[in-house]
């Protein structure tokens, strides 16, 4: 009986004695357990799935859960590694005092069990509390338009248990392997064993520079959305590898260069800190590079998702220039019958809802995008590869009758003339559409509201003299592009008076009519699409962008937690390494103040390097992210710049706070060894 209880007791007392080094580990365990369980619980919850756009949210949440799982595993593995390295001496002592390796293994097993129990208990409790908070945040972000009731979910608990038991088992196996491989004398002296000075690896250092430069160049040279989408992951990978190589190889090459400069090197501060950094850069570099990359992730994730969420209204307004746009496709070049009946019915529906129609516009239109030749006048309908976005021109064509009716003006057009308005770039004076040669008469502004295009190509709005001409243009591009050609259609677009809720109801009624009642065989012409701003906002955009922002914040918290934990353990493990060295320096005549200031100089350099690098990464990511945001309809660069700066400010403050806190832990360890 007695003997059985020995190991649990030893394990418990080991945890207590190593409390200072174990506490952050336990916190990290509990934190990751909590975050993972929350995400899974939210993703599995039925009331979340029932939300408008619930499937988007669930997809985003489960992707987030995968990211959390991966980073939890990495973090716990790393932290456990640091702890076990510093406890080798203790195990060596056990071994010498007569405990066999299998007894030590038993102690370790009990320790892991305690750790697991504590983290599960604390994590589950935290999840319970914070799920309520998350629920409140989500409801708030969806503007309270939901009745979210997230209850306790046993499945999420099971999934979490399974994942983290797996992780804990792996850490235990790793620790057992460490104990198994080592000899007791080595265990006793493992901390004092000198690490060999790292070699200069010029090739790797240069490779790091090249990779990083390539990644940066890719971002800067991004000229359009397609480019950004295809190159994004390549650029990210280039920068990640570049960062690791740079920190591991370049830092050593750089420090050795400093050391060769005798004037610089043989100064009290530089002497101690340069050699100190060089000495353990090999082990440190990975940690520093990881901190740098994680920090960049925090900055990019939070700033982009925040910017999307904050700019949501603009995004939706950009995609929906009018509250409602209904389209009726032509049958070839023939206008379907009953078109007017459809429009009349829509007016009735709006009236039944008690709202008024404003800014009503009805017109025929065809729009298509094609390449414009270098002469700036001839359209090229050939199908070819590798066309650049700035060579493309989007043409939206209308006919004069509609234009005159909408603007209430009368326009005289000579034969072969058309009205034209270019949103940007050089005005186009002549346009050759196959054998159709048009002279374009410029007009100031265009009364038919903005287009719905998200991908920004150059745009030309054009009013052709009559319906035949419009049909002609339609047929020319139809012949060239077949089923990829733009359709000829008749649109009705209008705004609604009333509150957002009223609009929402009304738009739903219009959409129901468009989807169910209008059709080829009914008395209403078939409406192919009915895009409704408020409905789309509530069912598509808000849930997606809000859940993206939520996940962004969530991952931001996770990355911050991982960063903080890594920083803490780096400081603690370095403090332990440095304590002996500073003790020697004090013995040969270094004052307390000199020790302090050289500690500060060394720690500051090592510490703020990743933050600096993260700031540079984020700045270089900016051009590419700007285009990626455009793919989400976000074109407000200033807003993105502001949210990036804001995020960096908050993050830097947090980082400095963590530094001050962990530097104290470091000083305590280094000073503590004096006695």
């Amino acid at each position, binding site marked *: 009986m007695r003997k059985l209880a020995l190991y649990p007791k030893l394990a418990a007392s080991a945890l207590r004695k190593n409390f200072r080094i174990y506490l952050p580990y336990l916190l990290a365990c509990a934190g990751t357990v909590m975050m993972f369980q929350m995400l899974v619980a939210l993703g599995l919850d039925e009331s979340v799935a029932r939300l408008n756009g619930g499937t988007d949210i669930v997809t985003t949440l489960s992707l987030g859960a995968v990211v959390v799982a991966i980073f939890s595993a990495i973090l716990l593995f790393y932290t456990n590694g640091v702890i076990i390295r510093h406890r080798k001496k203790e195990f060596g002592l056990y071994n010498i005092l007569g405990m066999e390796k299998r007894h030590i293994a038993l102690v370790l097993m009990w320790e892991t069990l305690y750790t697991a129990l504590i983290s599960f208990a604390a994590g589950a409790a935290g999840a319970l509390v914070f799920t309520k908070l998350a629920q409140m945040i989500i409801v708030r972000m969806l503007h309270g338009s939901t009745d979210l009731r997230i209850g306790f979910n046993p499945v999420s608990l099971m999934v979490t248990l399974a994942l983290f038991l797996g992780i804990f088992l792996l850490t235990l196996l790793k620790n057992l392997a460490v104990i198994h491989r080592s000899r007791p004398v080595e265990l006793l002296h493992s901390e004092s064993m000198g690490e060999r000075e790292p070699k200069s690896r010029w090739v790797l250092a240069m490779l790091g520079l090249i990779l990083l430069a390539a990644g940066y160049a890719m971002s800067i040279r991004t000229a359009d959305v397609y480019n950004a989408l295809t190159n994004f992951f390549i650029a990210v990978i280039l920068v990640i590898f570049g960062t690791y190589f740079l920190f591991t190889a370049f830092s050593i090459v750089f420090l050795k260069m400093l050391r060769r400069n005798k004037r610089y090197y043989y100064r009290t501060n530089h002497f101690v800190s340069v*050699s100190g950094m060089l000495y353990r850069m090999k082990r440190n570099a990975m940690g520093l590079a990881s901190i740098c990359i994680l920090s960049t992730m925090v900055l990019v994730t939070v700033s982009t998702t925040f910017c999307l969420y904050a700019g949501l209204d603009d995004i939706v307004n950009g995609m929906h220039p009018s509250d409602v746009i209904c389209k009726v496709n032509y049958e070839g070049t023939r206008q379907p019958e009953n078109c007017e009946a459809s429009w009349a019915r829509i007016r009735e529906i709006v009236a039944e809802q008690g709202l008024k129609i404003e800014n009503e516009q009805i017109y025929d239109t065809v729009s298509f995008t094609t390449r414009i030749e270098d002469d700036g006048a001839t359209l090229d309908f050939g199908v070819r590869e590798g066309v650049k976005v700035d060579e493309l021109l989007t043409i939206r064509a209308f006919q004069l009758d509609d234009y005159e009716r909408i603007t209430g003006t009368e326009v005289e057009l000579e034969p072969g003339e058309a009205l034209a308005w270019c949103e940007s770039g050089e005005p186009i004076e002549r346009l050759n559409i196959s054998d159709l040669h048009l002279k374009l008469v410029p007009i100031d502004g265009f009364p038919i509201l903005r287009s719905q295009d998200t991908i920004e190509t150059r745009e030309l709005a054009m009013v052709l003299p009559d319906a035949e001409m419009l049909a002609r243009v339609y047929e020319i591009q139809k012949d060239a592009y077949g089923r990829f050609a733009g359709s000829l259609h008749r649109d009705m677009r209008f705004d609604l008076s009333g509150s957002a809720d009223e609009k929402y109801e009304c738009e739903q009624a219009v959409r129901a009519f468009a989807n169910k009642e209008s059709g080829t065989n009914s008395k209403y012409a078939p409406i192919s699409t009915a895009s409704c701003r408020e409905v789309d906002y509530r069912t598509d955009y808000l849930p997606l962008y809000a859940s993206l922002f939520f996940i962004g914040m969530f991952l931001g918290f996770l990355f911050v937690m991982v960063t903080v934990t890594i920083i803490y353990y780096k400081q603690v493990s370095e403090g332990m390494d440095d304590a002996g060295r500073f003790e020697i320096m004090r*013995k*040969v005549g270094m004052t307390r103040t000199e020790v302090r200031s050289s500690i500060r100089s060394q720690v500051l350099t090592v510490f703020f390097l990743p933050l600096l690098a993260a700031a540079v990464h984020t700045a270089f990511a900016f051009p590419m992210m700007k285009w990626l945001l455009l793919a989400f309809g976000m074109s407000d660069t200033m807003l993105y710049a502001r949210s990036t700066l804001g995020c960096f400010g908050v993050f830097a403050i947090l980082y400095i706070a963590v530094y001050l806190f962990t530097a104290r832990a470091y000083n305590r360890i280094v000073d503590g060894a004096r006695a």
Partner: protein
Amino acid sequence: MAILDVQHVQKIYTTRFGGSRVQALTDVNFKVERGEYVAIMGESGSGKTTLLNILAALDRPTSGDVVLNGRSLNSIKDKQISAFRRDNLGFVFQDFNLLDNFSLRDNIYLPLVLAGRRVTDMEAAINPIAKMLGISEILEKYPYEVSGGQKQRAAVARALITKPQLVLADEPTGALDSRATDQLLELFSRVNRSGQTILMVTHSVRAASHASRVLFIRDGAIFHQIYRGDGTDEMLYQTISDTLTLLATGGEKNA
């Protein structure tokens, strides 16, 4: 003229809550002349280490004073004590205390760098010392690349490079094999002959037999001393052994 004057030094340790008091040094009183090579012998717990810490200005006596080159250690402020130690004392330790992350050259430079000397001065200072100690060839190596004897010689070079008034050696041969011990003791003698004052704490008879004077410390006080006179190392070795035997069998003072 005495370079070191230890005047009635007493050291009492009190436990944290003022409970029990331990008298480590009762009354230590001796002088070291310039150019002397003094060994202090004593068993574990005799107060050797406490005395050395006080001489090294790492610890302060409860009463009494230590005067180094005419300057009382008690009169030196805490802030200046490190600089004082750096300028006037050289240290050689049992476990070398070399820094793993510095080459031997940088380890030897360390006190000079701390003192803010110019690079050219440092380079001029290291060559004769390295030559004398036979480590010129291995200056660029790291401590983990060289033997124990070489490490200790580098540590001696570090102690000598500031041209200290006094070299304090704490059991310098404790971690060395017999060949390295002989080499190191031979070096100490040569360094001493060049005019360097050395004070060594040891319990190795062989180490002490190289000194010009041996002090015996017991129960916190100087108990006995032996002068070499004109005798050889072997004769001194014999005398020390006899004295230790006498001490161990409980002989009275000056028996």
